[in-house]
């Protein structure tokens, strides 16, 4: 049985190649091998969503994806959300509306929330609650998280996200929001 394999993938816009065991889960790959500890890891059972990151532009629970399955694909983690060192509108929304207490769920909430805003720049409360239904928060009661996403919808005028290459394709959406 081969013990390790090389995988190459684009992570936050940069191509990386690493040696992994086939059984390595993507969450451990990004945290332990790439040092990107913004992606959290908790329940291990595909329930909590703390490990949410994007594969090919869609949020997935990375405790239930093998790193080898991401070989040749594009991964985006919470570390890539800021724009040139500035918090993006969604991150600012979490600050403005107290969208976090302990912060453990926040990276997953942000990655799911950003995906929602990219597809629907002006989501109503029900849409937001449905979108984040795979991300559990034990602290906030969700009210402030929903408000944080709304804050981003109302303040995401595109200026903050505009200079980031990976945000280009949705910058126009945000202008119309």
């Amino acid at each position: 049985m081969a013990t390790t394999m090389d995988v190459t993938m684009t992570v936050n816009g940069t191509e990386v190649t690493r040696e992994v065991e086939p059984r390595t889960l993507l969450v451990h790959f990004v945290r332990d091998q790439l040092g990107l500890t913004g992606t959290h890891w908790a329940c291990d059972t595909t329930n909590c969503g703390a490990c949410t990151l994007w594969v090919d532009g869609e949020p997935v629970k990375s405790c239930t994806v093998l790193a080898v399955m991401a070989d040749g694909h594009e991964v985006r983690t919470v570390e890539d959300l800021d724009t040139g060192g500035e918090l993006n509108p969604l991150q600012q929304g979490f600050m403005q509306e107290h969208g976090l207490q302990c912060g453990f769920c926040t990276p997953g909430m942000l990655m799911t929330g950003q995906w929602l805003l990219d597809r629907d720049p002006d989501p109503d409360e029900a849409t937001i609650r449905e979108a984040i239904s795979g991300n559990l928060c034990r602290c906030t009661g969700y009210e402030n998280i929903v408000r944080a996403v709304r804050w981003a919808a109302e303040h995401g005028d595109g200026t903050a996200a505009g200079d980031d290459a990976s945000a280009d394709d949705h910058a126009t959406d945000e202008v119309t929001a």
Partner: protein
Amino acid sequence: MQVPETFDYERVATVEEALQRLSHHGDEARLIAGGHSLLPMMKLRLALPEVLIDINDVPGLDHVRVVAGGEGGGGGEDEIAIGALVRHAAILTDPILGEHWPIFADAERKIADPLVRNRGTIGGSVCQADPAEDLSAVITALRGSVVVQSADGRRTVPIREFHTGPWETVVGDGEMVVEVRVPIRTSVGSAYEKVERRVGDWAVAAAGTFLRMDGNTIAEAGIGLAAVGATHMTCPEAEESLVGGPADADAFATAAGIVSAAVDPTADQRGPVDYKRHLAGELTRRALARSADRARDDSLREDA
């Protein structure tokens, strides 16, 4: 930390290659699609494959399209073909399924959560053969079929013969599922009803139904049941009780009573037997009522 036992990983580019690798490895190998049933089982050591064959790159398995009946073994009428790699998220919003069978979107809204739905596939769902799998109940209600391919060609298996028991299917070594088929009908309505403990959980009980109307008379009825220990996930006696009669509250209550008596649920953390038995009937009744409403709308649309 939950991590699977060690295994070898192979990625294949075509169905033929997948079949060749499956034959080569025999029962030591498993296909992996979304991985959202298999990886959790591997983490718990409930599954210990020595080789995983990743089919996510295989082209031509992610379509939803109308095909002429008879193509690949159908029965003459038009069908909707759904590729094995179509993900839950795509089924939820698919316009063809939405137009003909709203039961799919009803069920998908209640399957897991949006993130799981971005990965899990219809092929993985039917092959996992979990008695609580919602899509299997939907396809069972619609009397759909599963297209299984091997090196010798394709065979079409009615969904009601596809599952041979909990977590067991007719798919043999060297075979894989490439498509799910559901028939297209006119003057129909369909619906899915599920009770879950919390958002994203598996069903305590669920029922999906469709009705085909001929004027005010039910011409055809289908019932699919998840998580309640129904043989082949259905209840033929209840279906038969409906055919030839009116689509009214009495008929639905009779069918619901038959379902309640026929199912064989087990008590677990999701609830006791009598509660699940009650739910199976009540959810069948609600799904039938919504199916009838939708069939009425469907007929009105055809008349317009």
